[in-house]
């Protein structure tokens, strides 16, 4: 079983090496298929490993294996350790499964890009990094994976490196992630100082000995890492900009896998977080604020991918709420379903963009329902799942989170519940604003001009792009059935063992009640969106220019977060460097005595050229004379 996990881990790495070595020797399509097949093999390995894990008796599903110890210093030792349990299995399946579909999609998407081989190699590298992150059994190896996904994310956002905006976005993502990495690293240091170990098993065993303060600080630091990687408040600003990268990347990294690493981290470290209740409450609050804020911002965005990006933020905020309420399974469950429907939406958006020759502004779309019926159908499933409409998958997982809030029955629980329901309203509005503006409405002049020719040319898209979308649509529709309250119980019972201290699970009644509310509110949101955006209404424009002007402006500026960071960090740094270069460098170091230093150096340089004249024979002569003199000296002295 563990062999299979090792193989799963190794396959993408082999892919990276192969693609890098073979490079241009491979045909572009061949490279794509090679990478995809590797991913398929990895997925199969992961699936078989999961089945084998499932066939073990419950309670014996946690496998730790040390391949070798690669770093030892005193009593600190880090090994290439593997941790395979129910949570890892879920992550492996999501990463390799969704990863495989997106690899296939990329073959079609990157068909015309001369550098598609490099893209495929990066994709494989990303998958490898993510796998390292989830299979590691100690925090250091996790940090390795953590950093590697940051790197591959950087490479992939900046894949079109002749686009200045993409480069900027890549740098932004990298810096934000680096802040998180620092937090995570500090947390690891602190845990090592407190507990003397970095392995999960050691930390879990020692967690109960920590004082609440110690645990809280450690968890807070880990939370910094999680927040940065998962694009939560206040380190969220990189995610919308990351949409400058190719769309498959948005789907794989910035929706399905990497950004959920924070949720994974918290769920994984739950035996530690249990001892820091304040941090857990903080997580819930971050989640609630984040989901409302990003939901609001999403309503005013006009770039199709950015809308989905803000929606991703808000959905991950839901997951944070779930894990913050100690209902870890709901967070992971939502992670699982979200991977399907969000990847679906992104890939669908990619198809739309593809059909419109790169146009991403939804105001330039409209009426695509008739020309792209398959894409419309699939995206509609995704949108319904995202809005949490029963019986699509998102409904079950999101309502499970909210029901947990109801079940906890504390102020925090109520905040989560009410905030989550409000978020559902926003979700319905922004999701269907997108759907209506893209697919319903009267077509914009641009769409009218471009679409017919485009559809006539290659239909709705190449089959390598369509099939992943179909499969994801099926997944988005049915994965919720894993946990139908009172009927099936798979998500909870599978994930229950990962939390030794127990998890929150709502009762069946609470669940159904929440589902009823959630669906109703989602439908209300859809109705509002229909009223405002499906018909040719001037209501949005009135709001934009009328009473909501200031609020609208604030939302369009994304609540001024970017401006805040610019004022707080960027401007002072620019000012300081300008001061240093203009006032210090140019004046202070140009003073005469300092210039004399340069002259002095030049003088010494010139005077040594007499000996260092480049004639090798002279060097050899001096060498020989030196040897002769040395031996003579030894002879005379030693006798």
């Amino acid at each position, binding site marked *: 079983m563990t062999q299979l996990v090792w193989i799963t881990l190794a396959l993408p790495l082999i892919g990276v090496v192969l693609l890098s070595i073979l490079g241009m020797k491979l045909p572009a399509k061949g490279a794509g298929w090679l990478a995809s097949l590797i991913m398929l093999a990895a997925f199969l390995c992961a699936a078989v490993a999961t089945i084998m894990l499932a066939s073990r008796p419950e309670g014996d599903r946690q496998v730790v294996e040390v391949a070798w110890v690669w770093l030892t210093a005193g009593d600190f030792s880090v090994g290439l350790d593997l941790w395979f349990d129910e949570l890892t299995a879920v992550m492996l399946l999501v990463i390799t499964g969704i990863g495989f579909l997106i690899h296939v999609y990329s073959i079609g998407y990157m068909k015309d890009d001369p550098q598609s081989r490099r893209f495929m190699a990066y994709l494989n590298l990303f998958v490898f990094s993510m796998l390292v992150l989830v299979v590691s059994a100690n925090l250091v190896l996790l940090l390795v994976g953590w950093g590697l996904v940051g790197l591959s994310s950087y490479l992939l956002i900046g894949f079109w490196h002749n686009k200045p905006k993409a480069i900027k976005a890549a740098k932004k993502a990298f810096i934000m992630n680096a802040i998180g990495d620092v937090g995570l690293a500090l947390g690891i240091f602190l845990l090592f100082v407190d507990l003397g170990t970095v392995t999960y098993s050691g930390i879990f065993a020692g967690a109960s000995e920590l004082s609440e303060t110690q645990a809280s600080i450690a968890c807070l630091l880990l939370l910094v890492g999680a927040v940065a990687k998962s694009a939560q408040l206040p380190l969220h600003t990189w995610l919308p900009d990351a949409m400058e990268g190719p769309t498959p990347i948005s789907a794989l990294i910035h929706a399905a896998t990497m950004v959920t690493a924070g949720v994974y981290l918290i769920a994984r470290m739950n035996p530690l977080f249990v001892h820091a209740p304040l941090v857990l409450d903080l997580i819930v609050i971050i989640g609630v604020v984040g989901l409302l804020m990003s939901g609001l911002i999403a309503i005013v965005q006009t770039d199709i991918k950015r809308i989905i990006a803000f929606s991703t933020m808000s959905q991950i905020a839901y997951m944070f709420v779930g894990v913050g309420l100690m209902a870890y399974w709901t967070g992971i469950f939502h992670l699982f379903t979200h991977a399907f429907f969000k990847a679906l939406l992104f890939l669908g958006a990619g198809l739309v963009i593809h059909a419109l020759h790169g146009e991403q502004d939804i105001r330039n779309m409209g009426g695509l329902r008739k020309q792209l019926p398959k894409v419309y159908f699939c995206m509609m499933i995704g949108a319904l799942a995202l809005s949490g409409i029963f019986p699509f998958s998102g409904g079950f997982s999101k309502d499970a989170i909210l029901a947990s809030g109801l079940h906890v029955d504390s102020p925090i629980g109520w905040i989560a519940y009410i905030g989550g329901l409000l978020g559902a309203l926003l979700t319905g509005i922004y999701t269907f604003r997108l759907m209506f503006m893209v697919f319903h409405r009267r077509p914009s002049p641009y769409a009218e001009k471009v679409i017919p020719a485009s559809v006539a040319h290659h239909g709705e898209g190449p089959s390598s792009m369509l099939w992943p979308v179909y499969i994801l649509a099926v997944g988005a529709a049915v994965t919720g059935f894993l946990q139908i309250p009172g009927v099936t119980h798979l998500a909870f019972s599978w994930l229950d063992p990962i939390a030794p201290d127990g998890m929150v699970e709502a009762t069946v009644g609470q669940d159904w009640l929440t589902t009823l509310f959630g669906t109703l509110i989602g439908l209300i949101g859809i109705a509002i969106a229909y009223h405002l955006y499906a018909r040719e209404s001037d209501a949005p424009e009135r709001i934009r220019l009328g009473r909501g002007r200031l609020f609208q402006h604030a939302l369009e500026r994304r609540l001024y977060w970017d401006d805040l960071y610019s004022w707080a960090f960027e401007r002072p740094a620019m000012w300081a460097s300008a001061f240093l270069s203009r006032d210090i460098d140019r004046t202070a170091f140009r003073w005469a005595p300092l210039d004399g230093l340069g002259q002095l150096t030049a003088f010494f340089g010139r005077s040594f050229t007499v000996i260092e004249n*480049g*004639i090798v*024979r002279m060097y*050899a002569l001096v060498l020989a004379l030196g040897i002769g003199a040395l031996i003579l000296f030894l002879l005379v002295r030693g006798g």
Partner: protein
Amino acid sequence: MTVGLPLFLAISAILFSIGLVGVLLRRSPLTILLSLEVMLNSVNLTLVAFSREVGGSDGQIFALIVMGIAAAEVVVGLGLVVAMTRREMVLDTDELRTLNG
């Protein structure tokens, strides 16, 4: 065996010095390389002589390794000479005194 170790060492030293003179005085890279070979060979003789005195094969191994390295050195040196010829440069080490890189 009536010839003593010192004789071998003395011959080796003389050969070494002759080679050294060649390296120091000649300007053609080819002749310098040839003189270097003389020096290397004299060292080989020393190594083998000491090996004989001790009765182990270590010195002979060293000599063999020196030969291998000498072959490598000659390959690079001759490659340089060929490259210089191709670029119509003068085959004179005294002219090769400016770095350009």
